[in-house]
């Protein structure tokens, strides 16, 4: 079955490499738990949208709601500092 929103165009110019590295770095530190690095993945997707590598869409619709008070630390945070 084809993916819902289609195919990711490849990032040949490595425009979002930094965001990707940050996300992967975060994963390594938290034992690859996806929910702890959600902000980084959100940033990566936002980068893609900016650089026209992804269809622009409200990330809230894709499961990236601002969950105030529900982050693992128990307080609203924008970034998870390593």
């Amino acid at each position, binding site marked *: *079955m*084809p*993916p*819902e*929103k*289609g*195919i*990711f165009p*490849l*990032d*040949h110019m490595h425009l979002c*490499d930094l965001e*990707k590295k940050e*996300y*992967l770095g975060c*994963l*390594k530190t938290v*034992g*690859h*738990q*996806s*929910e702890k690095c*959600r902000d980084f*993945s959100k940033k*990566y*997707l936002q980068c893609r949208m900016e650089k026209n590598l*992804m269809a622009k869409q409200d990330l809230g*619709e*894709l*499961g*990236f*709601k601002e969950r105030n008070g529900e982050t693992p630390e128990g307080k609203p945070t924008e970034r998870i500092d390593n």
Partner: protein
Amino acid sequence: MTWSRLGRRIYLSPYLRTLQNASAGSRCLGSVSEVSSYKSISCNIGFQHYFTSTRQLSRLDQELNTKSFRQYFYSLASVSQNVKSSRATSGVRHFSAHASKEKKSQKMLLYLTGLVFGMVGVTYAAVPLYRRFCQATGYGGTVQRRETVEEKIARHDKEKTVASREIVVQFNADIADGMPWKFIPTQRQIRVKPGESALAFYTAENKSSTPITGVSTYNVTPMKAAVYFNKIQCFCFEEQRLLPGEQIDMPVFFYIDPEIETDPRMDGINNIILSYTFFKVSEE
């Protein structure tokens, strides 16, 4: 004259006798001699033979008294053939029978043509109807709700479904024979809770000295979990071209449906393996 008539009667009597015995048990008793072929349709088909033949024989009986000996033999010979195809009818009756047969066959033609068109129409209509049936009943493993991922996420958000199970998604990468790429998952696994969209990466590198185009397919194991594994966006099924020596990251953005927790068949499942395979399309 009387001797010839007597002879004819003797010749004919066995036929009459057997037919009368046969028709005695029939359901459609009525004036046999005047029965037309149309009226006999209301009878059991099997008895039609008897009736038309009885009719013919009774007509023959009439003919015996009016026509010549030669004509009598001709009529008799035709009765012994298949009754329906017999031509031993007098002028007017023959014409009306023929006309009614023609009307009958025209009606049949119209009916059959209508049937053909009806069948073709049903074939065309079957596709969307079957799809709707499958969605309604989930027959054959069809995913019952064809909602998009956004709708699904919105729904679970509204229902405040809390996922408790943590599922480990492991990644596997393969290349086909003769494909000079290095293709590996950038992370070996990701722990994700159902209902959370997650991002994962694969890295591909073209180790050859020519630009190569490849296309990938994927599958999810265990198979029954595949229904709950929604890929929002990925790099599969489309041709990807890599220049010689180029290394590139390929993201996969997926979502595991929280309904995996309520399905009893998914009880022991804590591991899902997403496997990608790259095939060579062309080499320049």
